[in-house]
């Protein structure tokens, strides 16, 4: 038997991860994932426009904005494959910035495939020029753009002379900031239209008029605003391409909501299809961990749990997993972090362990069972490729692998913090594992009562459990030393904990993840923050002083702090009831906007992202017992927020502010 190598194409550092518009036909073994909400719809509109019989309508511009690996180039390739255009330039072996095509109806189509590639003449505002060129020629335009490029291209429309340049720079600000700046009065006009103005964070639509004539329509899609690990509802079909498309909102379902088990997240089908595709290529062998992984993950419920754990990792680390990363994580869960020919080695390793499990002496059996167990998805995900602490004899020698995605997964290791109500789940499992010593089989019985575990459970897991149970209960000459015995038990504990967590979709700190999702939903709907949580956040930002009623901060010191009362300090009061905490979402990010009541309108005085650490600290205070190690992480940010609040208070409250003074003798009455 041979592990097919195609699964490595999209592993970390694999070769098949980037697409160009000219290599349209993609690897057939890989299931196609859905495109980000609205992106396929916008590209569909583009295809319809490109295949129009005449060239009279407005030019269509589609901007796909997002990081690498979200499927922008794939969509561009799909559009190019479908519009029957003739390339204007000779094809090149290298990825190019821009591709231009002549369409059958006489119009042109320009595709900026990778705006990060500088143009041949290294011109500074290259994207702006690309847009202007398309506007001047009346060509359709499809741009795949990442935000970093936009920051570098930002210019004030006022500073530009030509109408098209102004429009282009307005589009660039729109892509970057989500709001269209007003153009100086003149011939050119660009206006958003449709519900996209406020309803959708993924999609925007605008019309460009020059001297009153409609010259182009713009569809803007943010590719990475929606998590692939949440539900992406189907959108309604578009009726016309030159108007705002009916938008569809991704739905967020908190991990601990009952419905979480019933909604399909966008990536789930990809994972289960990938697993079953690979499963079909593997011979039936019950003791093969790779096959067991595909068996488990091809089950939809298991794939759902896997997606929930990944979603947790996303939220805990404040990242966004693109298709590229999720494909890599999926293949990591099946076959580990392998890059190339090492598949053969893995094969040999597996065969050797299987052989020992079948024919070895009891000690060998248990060692090999552990080695095979370490190749199961729930162990691979969190352990494989990590820098080794001690040398585990008999373990497969994974190449050391590190990526932000893997770090995020390791951060979400359920062993760190287990289950929704930690103590309850932990003691239940601990008790079950203890039963091993009395000859019980905790995993097998869990698989009988818990259907999610049952979907995950394979004959290999059952065999491992039998061997472990046998080993810890053996007496006489075959028995393990006390030390080995406890080592085996502790390994099996980790094994079962992670198994249960992955099957149930519990990342570490699942309750905080779930609360974050709830808060995001509140923010998204424009609701106020849950008052308990708001109090807790305020408690971090503006802690009450010793008197328990007021908040004072130093401002003549290098750092703004509440400080102690026994030093020579002057402090300014920030009245707690004057601090307003607003929430906004931007894609999958949740920002807090802090303003003071004394401010007369205008922009909030400070922004910060509500991330895991801040939320965790706040939730700990909610329970009244405060302080987690997250405090260290958020301290520098909090200090800056306070400094910004102090500056606002000084600016806007003027002489109305109260001051407090203290010296070694204590507080002075101010």
């Amino acid at each position, binding site marked *: 038997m041979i592990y097919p190598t195609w699964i490595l194409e999209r592993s970390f550092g694999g070769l098949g991860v980037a697409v160009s518009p000219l290599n349209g036909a993609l690897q057939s073994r890989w299931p196609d994932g859905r495109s980000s909400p609205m992106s396929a719809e916008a590209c569909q509109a583009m295809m319809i426009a490109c295949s129009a019989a005449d060239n009279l309508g407005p030019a269509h511009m589609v901007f796909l904005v*997002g*990081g*690498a690996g979200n499927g922008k180039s794939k969509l561009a390739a799909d559009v190019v494959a479908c519009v029957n255009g003739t390339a204007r330039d000779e094809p090149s072996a290298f990825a190019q910035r821009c591709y231009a095509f002549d369409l059958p109806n006489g119009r042109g189509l320009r595709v900026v495939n990778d705006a*990060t590639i500088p143009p041949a003449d290294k011109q500074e505002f290259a994207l702006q020029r690309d847009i202007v060129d398309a506007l001047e020629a009346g060509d359709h335009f499809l741009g795949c753009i*990442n*935000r*970093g*490029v936009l*920051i*570098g291209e930002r210019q004030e429309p006022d500073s530009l002379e030509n109408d098209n340049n102004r429009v282009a720079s307005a589009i660039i600000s729109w892509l970057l900031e989500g709001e269209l700046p007003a153009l100086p009065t003149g011939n050119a006009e660009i206006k958003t239209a449709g519900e996209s103005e406020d309803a959708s964070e993924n999609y925007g639509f605008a019309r460009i008029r020059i001297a009153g004539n409609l010259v182009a329509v713009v569809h803007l899609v943010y590719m*990475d605003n929606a998590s692939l690990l949440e539900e992406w509802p189907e959108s309604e079909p578009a009726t016309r391409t030159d108007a705002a498309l009916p938008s569809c909102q991704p739905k967020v379902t908190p991990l601990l909501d009952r419905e979480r088990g019933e909604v399909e997240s966008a990536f789930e089908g990809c994972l289960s299809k990938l697993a079953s595709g690979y499963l079909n290529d593997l011979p039936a062998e019950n003791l093969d961990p790779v096959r067991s992984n595909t068996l488990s993950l091809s089950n939809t419920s298991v794939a759902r749990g896997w997606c929930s754990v990944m979603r947790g990792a996303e939220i805990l680390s*404040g*990242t*966004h997993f*693109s298709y590229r990363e999720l494909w890599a994580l999926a293949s990591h869960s099946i076959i580990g972090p392998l890059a190339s020919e090492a598949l053969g080695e893995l094969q040999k390793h597996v065969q050797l362990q299987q052989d020992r499990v079948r024919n070895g002496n009891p000690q060998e059996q248990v060692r090999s069972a552990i080695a095979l167990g370490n190749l199961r998805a729930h162990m691979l995900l969190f352990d494989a490729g990590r820098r080794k602490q001690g040398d585990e004899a008999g373990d497969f020698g994974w190449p050391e692998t590190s990526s*932000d995605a893997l770090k995020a997964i390791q951060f979400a290791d359920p062993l760190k913090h287990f289950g929704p109500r930690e103590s309850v789940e932990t003691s239940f499992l601990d008790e079950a594992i203890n039963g091993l010593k009395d000859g019980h089989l905790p995993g097998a019985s869990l698989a009988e009562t818990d259907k999610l575990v049952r979907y995950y459970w394979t004959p290999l897991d059952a065999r491992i459990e039998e061997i472990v149970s046998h080993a810890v209960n053996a007496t006489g000459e075959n028995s393990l030393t006390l030390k080995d015995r406890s080592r085996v038990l502790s390994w099996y504990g980790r094994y079962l904990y992670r198994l249960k967590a992955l099957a149930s979709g519990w990342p570490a700190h699942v309750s905080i993840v779930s609360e974050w999702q709830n808060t995001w939903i509140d923010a998204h709907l424009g609701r106020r923050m849950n008052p308990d949580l708001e109090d807790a956040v305020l408690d971090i930002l503006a802690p009450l002083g010793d008197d328990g009623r007021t908040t004072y901060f130093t*401002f*003549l*010191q*290098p*750092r*703004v702090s509440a400080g102690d009362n026994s030093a*020579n*300090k*002057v402090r*300014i009061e920030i009245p707690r009831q004057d601090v307003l905490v607003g929430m906004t979402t931007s894609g999958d*990010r949740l920002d807090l906007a802090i303003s003071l009541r004394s401010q007369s309108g205008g*922009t909030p005085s*400070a*922004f*910060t*992202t509500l991330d895991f650490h801040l939320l965790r600290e706040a939730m700990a205070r909610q329970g009244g017992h405060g302080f987690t190690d997250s405090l260290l*992480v*958020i301290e*520098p*940010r909090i200090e*800056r927020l306070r*400094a*910004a609040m*102090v*500056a606002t208070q*000084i*600016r*806007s409250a*003027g*002489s109305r*502010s109260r*001051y407090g*003074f*203290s*010296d070694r*003798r204590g507080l*002075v*009455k*101010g």
Partner: protein
Amino acid sequence: MSELAWSIYRASGERSERRPGFAGYAYRELSSKKVKDFEFTLPVESSDKHDQLRSFILGIREARSDEDAKRIVDILLFELEAPYSNKALRTAATPLGLQTALLQDLRGITGKNNPANLALILEQMYALGGGKASMASQWASAMTEAQGGGMPGWIDEFYAQVLPSNLADVVLSIGSLGPSHRVEDLRTPTWLSNLEGNPFKWLATSWDRLCDSGWIDSMPRRRWTDWAACVARTGLACGYMFEMHLYRRLGAALISDEDPDDVVRQLLNDGKRLFSWDDQVPRSAADVGPVVTQLASAGSACMKLIHDLVSDEGLDFPAMCEFDDDPNGLVAWLAAARAARGGVPDLQGKVARALAAKKAGPANNTWEMIRYSLLSRASDGEQDLYGVLRSAGRYTWVEPGQEWLVTVSSLQAERPGQLSRLTDLGASLSALGIDASQRTIVSRLESYGLARSSHDADDALEIMPGF
């Protein structure tokens, strides 16, 4: 900043009468030995000044009793004092405003009769970087135009009154002349203004942004003052390093036959990585102490050598300033210098000796200046948040203080609240001669809460400004 403020007054040409033997202004005396005739500007208890301040506090009703007013005055005066080192003899006040900047001068702080003209050095560097006006005028305008400016009005007034009455006319003249103050006759070579990314340009851009773009109103004044000091001291030290690097390499190039274009290109490139910064590298390997020593000693010696050659009338050796208008001036100078080298006896030996020079004389001052500006100054257990280098035992390594990175990365954005990119930060750091590992910067930015979700990976990582 004190020196910048004083420089405006000095330029006005007015001189107030001073008693003979006057040695300078300082805020407070620390040693009991009276050496020279300093004037201390901290109002002592029961002096008229102190009484005046107390009545002010009572007048605005911040205190209800005389006793409280006295304590408040003491607290405010104490808070004004800048941190000082264990060895200091006199202290300075934090230059939070025009008046407080005048509470000391460089003579008073250093105790030297003729300290280096720091303001002029800064202005020269700022001019080299193509600054808009002058550093002093930009600072003075920021002070006078601030809208609230992170400083409560009554405290501003209070501190203004701390200034000794005999300096009132100084404040007046700075207030009126400050915004239009210019320093004339500074060199601005074209080849340097054309050069992307150099410490002078960084200094000028950062200073102009800090002073003109609303930053002063978006943070407490003390923080703004610290940022300003951070920009000045970083620009100063890195400017010196750049200059020393330039002289050292040009000195060496005098006796080689490598193509002048290549020499200059290479030396400018190397100027972007005088220091390397990677938190993962052990200290012994990251030691930059020898780099500073070598730059200071060989750089100063080469500079002296070149000056000597130029001023030797018999040699007809070209001066660099003759090429200031040439966009490719450095290359042209090198070519001209090489053409003239035939007449110099034992040039080979002279250059070799300069390159191997020991740290002495002016090199010591340069070395001191660079280290003093960049090294983290911890005092009283308080960390220096704005240092670039840290040292312990034998080693000195790059480990910027938290606020240093916040300052440098925030000032890439033109205004408060604007985002910038990791590429820009990389460019700023290399302008300062620091070659930083991306991994290190990203993890620092993340831990200070400045990096924003990194899905548009790599160089496009967005950096939030500090304010």
